[in-house]
């Protein structure tokens, strides 16, 4: 009897029945992600709007896309935004995590404060930062006037609009990576740091040769998560600048949104979505393979 129970409980490695455990997840994954993705790819080969029958046009939507100056501009804006935000988010949240990686009431309170921005909705975040950036009564405008400088139209100047959106995003997004880094830092054995201290190792060398390698997997994970998230910029740009001025803060998702819901050009929007999907995939995979080759994957 005992033998029967043991054989029942013993996992059968390589058995197809084990897949049953992930079946519920697979059903949702296929139904809610894979199937819509395939439908989206199919739509991108059609000329159709939201309310009428479509016709197959092959790669015409893609050809149109790559000759569309507004789309190319939104691609460049999005890449610029990712460059502005991802390194900043990762570095700032890493340094905050290192600074707060200690057991004290103050660090606990500060962790809560730094994380609190992440729980706000995009509407609240952009409202707060609008008050900071608006040129007349905004925080920065008052500061500039106080210093005798000319206030800058952060939300209405082409060179500043996307930067303002990026600053807002960085402030909004540092909470989650900070918590991931804190969790990772707490896994690093204290003995390693003690050994380094005994060897009189400087703080910078300790950080570079002990901390960074120990949490490299978390750094890679965070970078990939942030790349995927920041490529999908939408709410902040729509609410703070509406993509302007002159389209200088219009990201790809806003382009897709406009094509789908303002123009009702669903096939065109679907084609732009596939380009965005490919960009995210390539960027995230490049980061993953680059890190793997260095032996950290």
């Amino acid at each position, binding site marked *: 009897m005992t033998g029967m129970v043991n054989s029942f409980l013993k996992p059968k490695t390589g058995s197809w029945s084990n897949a049953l455990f992930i079946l519920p997840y697979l059903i949702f994954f296929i139904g809610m992600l894979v199937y819509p993705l395939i439908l989206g790819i199919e739509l991108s080969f059609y*000329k159709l*709007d*939201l*309310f*009428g029958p479509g016709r197959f046009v092959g790669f015409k939507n893609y050809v*149109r896309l790559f000759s*569309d*100056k*507004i789309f190319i501009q939104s691609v460049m804006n999005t890449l610029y935004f990712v460059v502005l935000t991802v390194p900043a988010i990762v570095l700032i949240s890493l340094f905050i995590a290192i600074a707060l990686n200690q057991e004290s009431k103050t660090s606990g309170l500060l962790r809560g404060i730094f994380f609190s921005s992440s729980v706000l909705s995009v509407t609240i975040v952009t409202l707060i930062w*609008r008050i900071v950036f*608006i*040129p*007349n*009564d905004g925080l920065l405008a008052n500061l500039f006037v106080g210093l005798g400088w000319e*206030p800058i*139209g952060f*939300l*209405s*100047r*082409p060179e500043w609009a996307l930067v303002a959106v990026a600053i807002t995003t960085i402030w909004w997004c540092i909470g989650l990576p900070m918590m991931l880094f804190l969790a990772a830092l707490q896994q690093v054995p204290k003995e390693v740091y003690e050994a380094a201290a005994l060897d009189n190792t400087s703080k910078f060398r300790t950080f570079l040769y002990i901390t960074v390698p120990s949490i490299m997997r978390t750094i890679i994970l965070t970078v990939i998560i942030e790349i995927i998230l920041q490529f999908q910029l939408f709410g902040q740009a729509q609410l*703070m*600048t*509406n993509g*302007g*001025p*002159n*389209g200088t803060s219009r990201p790809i998702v806003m382009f897709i*949104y*406009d094509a789908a*819901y*303002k*123009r*009702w*050009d669903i096939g*065109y929007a679907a084609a732009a979505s596939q380009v965005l999907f490919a960009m995210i995939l390539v960027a995230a995979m490049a980061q993953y393979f680059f890190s793997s080759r260095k032996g950290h994957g």
Partner: protein
Amino acid sequence: MKLKKLLFSVAALAALTIATPSWAETELSVQRFFGACEADFGTNTDVDKAVGECGIITSLINKFNAENSDINVVVTTVEWPGYDQLTAQLAAGDPPDIVTMHESVISDYQSRNLLMPMDDIFKSAGIEPSSFTGAGVAGVTKDGKMYGMPFDTWTMLFHINLNLFKQADMLNADGTPMLPSSPDELLEQARKFKAATGKPYMIQQLANGVAPYTRLFYTFMAQQNSDFFADPMNVKLQSDEARNVVNLFKTIFDEGLTTIDMDYPSAVAAFPGGEGGVALNGTWLIGDYVAASEKEGALKDGYTVYPYPQLFATDASYADGHAWVMPTKERSDENIAATAKFLRFLTDNDYQWARTGHLPGVQAVFDMEDFKNLPHRSNIAKIAQTGVSLPPAVLRQFAVQDIIGEEISSAITGNKSVDDALKDAEYRVNDLLNNL
């Protein structure tokens, strides 16, 4: 025993509630823009006390709910203009019962059979189509049927701070402001105003939104008799008329004769704050600015308003209208009866809506003494004759508005040359229209 009795009573009451549908309220889902103001008017049913678009429409609906215990109007307030949300709702097959819609947008939805003709419901509500203004009827009529209930006609206006105009010695002998009659005169007066007051002549929204640019562009194109949409599928913007308008406003920007960098809320607040002489904004702010002129502040006893001045050959202003439409969907008889009652209520109270500053959608309101006594209405009454809109056959007018506004703003603020901006605007609009 007591517990049993209590349970029985509760069950009986519940059964009675469920089994008596005739007592139930008919729920009417209304989706509107005009903003949210629950804190100020969320429970107000005295419409006379309400001010501004949001205050008046909120109070009107509160009053309707209070007077009609058998109907519950549930309001969803959307961010202006809310068409992206409506489009998604229609695509998902779940639109609200009644929606606010600009008359310029009705063709988009009507041409796809997404709106119900409302002639029958007007008949059942006892609303005579001839009771609406000619502009309103024209704005909602497609293929001989009415696809919306006209609520108002609106346009962009010169809201004027007379106190600052006085300081600039720009008042006529009768106390009215001096208004320009040519582009050169506009620049001359704007320069004089700035020299005298140290403030910009114009207050404009130049950030986070481009619709005002397009509206002023349409107005001054119409004043030059430019038929830039002669073919509704092919716009022509590379013209001398278009260059005249854009260059004029570029000069105003370059010379600091306008506020810069303001978004819509900042521009709205800047005018009663005395930050400039003329606010370029819509009819919907008249009520608010009249109220502001009755309080202490830079606008105290010094507010008036006029249509955009005639700078070119023809007196014309771009105008549009708000309407209530009914998306195509399955509806119960109770729902249709409740809708008819609600629309009748709005029509009967169109005077209250006209207090916002919009021109009434119901013709009879023009003849009401109360309306005639509203401040400044005689100044803007001519909009009924001079108002022009784009040809109804032009589809996606809001998307077109965004494109033209974005390109013009680029030219005015110096991010693009005027010729490049007009060329790009023309290309982008035609690309949009040719890919419908």
